[in-house]
């Protein structure tokens, strides 16, 4: 028994090393005195200096996160509603039609989505910029949220819903007291994936942006011709460190909470509801 767990831990450690190796590589080179991610030429903080002097890139970072947070939040809401709708469909064929429509944006390459959205926005007379980018990000994130929430719904105990109904719960109570708590891990998963999609998207954003609005991915990709500078590494290192700090704060808070509530009740584990 002991031995098995150790093998498991070894595997986990190994996988974490693989997952973090490229990140460590990137961060290490953000301190390189040279200009590229190759050939260590001494420690330097100059790329961080460049970064803080570059108001344009800082503005882009803020834009990027603004779009990512808002779009993943809104797409989580809409996607959850969509998943609930699809879940309630009894007819198998209708259900499949909806699921297929849902997945179309997942299978379509970004250039197609980008070009189609560009046409859509210009036909509707929409001015390109923050709003068009936000709407597009919401649009391509919705299907992944649906995909993450649906299995949670399918696993949900139907008798739970039925008994809630017997107890006279109305729609709103059923949703907030019964369904949402059960599917919240799926919603969180969907949120995080939508966030990732939004941060990483280049092609769609490129097509639907305009009027001075830009995101980090567009900036990084269009720098490829001249070579991505280590300033971008420095920026990524900073972003990574901030996210890591947030995760660690979460860790500390949730262990504390778990400890203080440990006496007795099985309602504990505030953390286990998340994600």
């Amino acid at each position: 028994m002991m031995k098995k767990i150790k093998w498991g831990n070894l595997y986990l450690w190994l996988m974490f090393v693989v997952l973090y190796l490229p990140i460590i590589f990137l961060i290490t080179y953000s301190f390189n005195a040279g200009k590229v991610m190759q050939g260590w030429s001494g420690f330097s903080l100059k790329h961080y200096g460049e970064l803080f002097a570059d108001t344009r890139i800082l503005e882009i970072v803020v834009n990027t996160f603004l779009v990512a947070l808002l779009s993943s939040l809104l797409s989580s809401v809409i996607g959850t509603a969509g998943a609930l709708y699809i879940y309630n469909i009894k007819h198998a064929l209708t259900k499949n039609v909806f699921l297929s429509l849902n997945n179309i944006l997942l299978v379509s390459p970004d250039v197609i989505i980008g070009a189609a959205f560009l046409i859509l926005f210009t036909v509707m007379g929409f001015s390109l910029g923050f709003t068009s980018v936000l709407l597009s990000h919401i649009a391509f994130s919705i299907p992944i949220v649906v995909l993450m929430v649906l299995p949670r719904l399918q696993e949900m105990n139907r008798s739970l819903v039925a008994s809630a109904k017997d107890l006279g719960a109305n729609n709103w109570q059923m949703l907030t007291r019964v369904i949402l708590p059960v599917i919240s891990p799926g919603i969180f998963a969907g949120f995080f994936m939508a966030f990732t999609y939004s941060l990483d998207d280049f092609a769609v954003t490129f097509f639907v942006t305009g009027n001075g609005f830009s995101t980090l991915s567009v900036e990084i990709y269009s720098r490829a011709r001249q070579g991505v500078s280590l300033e971008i590494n420095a920026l990524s290192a900073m972003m990574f460190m901030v996210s890591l700090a947030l995760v660690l704060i979460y860790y500390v808070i949730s262990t504390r909470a778990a400890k203080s509530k440990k006496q007795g009740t099985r309602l504990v584990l505030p953390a286990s509801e998340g994600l």
Partner: protein
Amino acid sequence: MKKLITGISAILVLVVLLFGTQRYLASQTGTGESSDKVLNLYNWGDYLDPDLITKFTKETGYKVSYETFDSNEAMYTKIKQGGTSYDLTVPSDYMIKKMKRENLLLPLDHSKLTGINNYDTRFMNQTFDKNNKYSLPYFWGTLGIIYNDKYVKPQDVQHWDDLWAPKFKNQIMLVDSARDALAMALITQNKSVNDKSTADLAAAQAKLTTLMPNIKAIIADEIKMYMAQNEAAIAVTYSGEASQAMGNNSHLHYVVPSEGSNLWFDNIVMPKTAKHKAAAYAFLNFMSEPKNAAQNATYVGYATPNKRAMPFLSEAVRHDKQFYPDKKTLDNLQVYDDLGQRWTEKYNDAFLEFKMSQR
């Protein structure tokens, strides 16, 4: 449920904070406001020294909104579709012709261009834009061979045909571009890089296919990175890419085959979406100033077409034959013409079939 509400509130707080920061930063750079003292510049990423933007704003009072693209075609799609208001953009040669033909460009008023005489006449009046009615040169360069002297002797890679030597098996990285790959094959058969004959194209494709055993990878902008890391012995790519790779690895050298190659231009044009013409002319004139052109060339690492800028460049760069080739080599270089829809597709189909012929 409590978790969900906490999560949503946390996100909303963050959003408000970010929004405040964005307003603050926008007021710093001035891009947020829709005043008339603005220039909307649409350029390749990192293709203009940021210090020059600051200098331009200081000198003229125009704030610059710098948006970026990563390929000519993507930029073209955006401009053609509308919904944007770019005042200036920087397409390559063939794209200028295409945009001109589709009435996407505004003619330049030469009387407002104060620095037009600073440009080297060799880079003016090109076939894609006669008399520079629509464009001014921004950067120029060539297509050539970059090699690593640790693995290859210089005399072995002076010409395109040398690449077919069996000893270079699995050693060459080729730029992922139909025009460039076929141009190389066409030149070895003494054909024009703008050849429009089915037989010649088929022959070029066949010739290219025989190069396949020597090809290690077909990639794009990453070539400079790979070459700098000694990943391959030889690569076919542009001078701009080469100069950057060479800056990071002293074993690399760049050759423009004397029998001919491609000469490319990135010129600055005013698309029909332009709204701030005064600002656009101010910028064109600003970039024509020798000092500014030289500063930008030093920052980006490409060759400047501004002959009065040459004294401001460092000695080593100015006399670098690889990047500022002599007249004899220059005379053999050919500029890409816009092939039109049908032939663009034929070239790309030929290249796609070549790529699929691997293994």
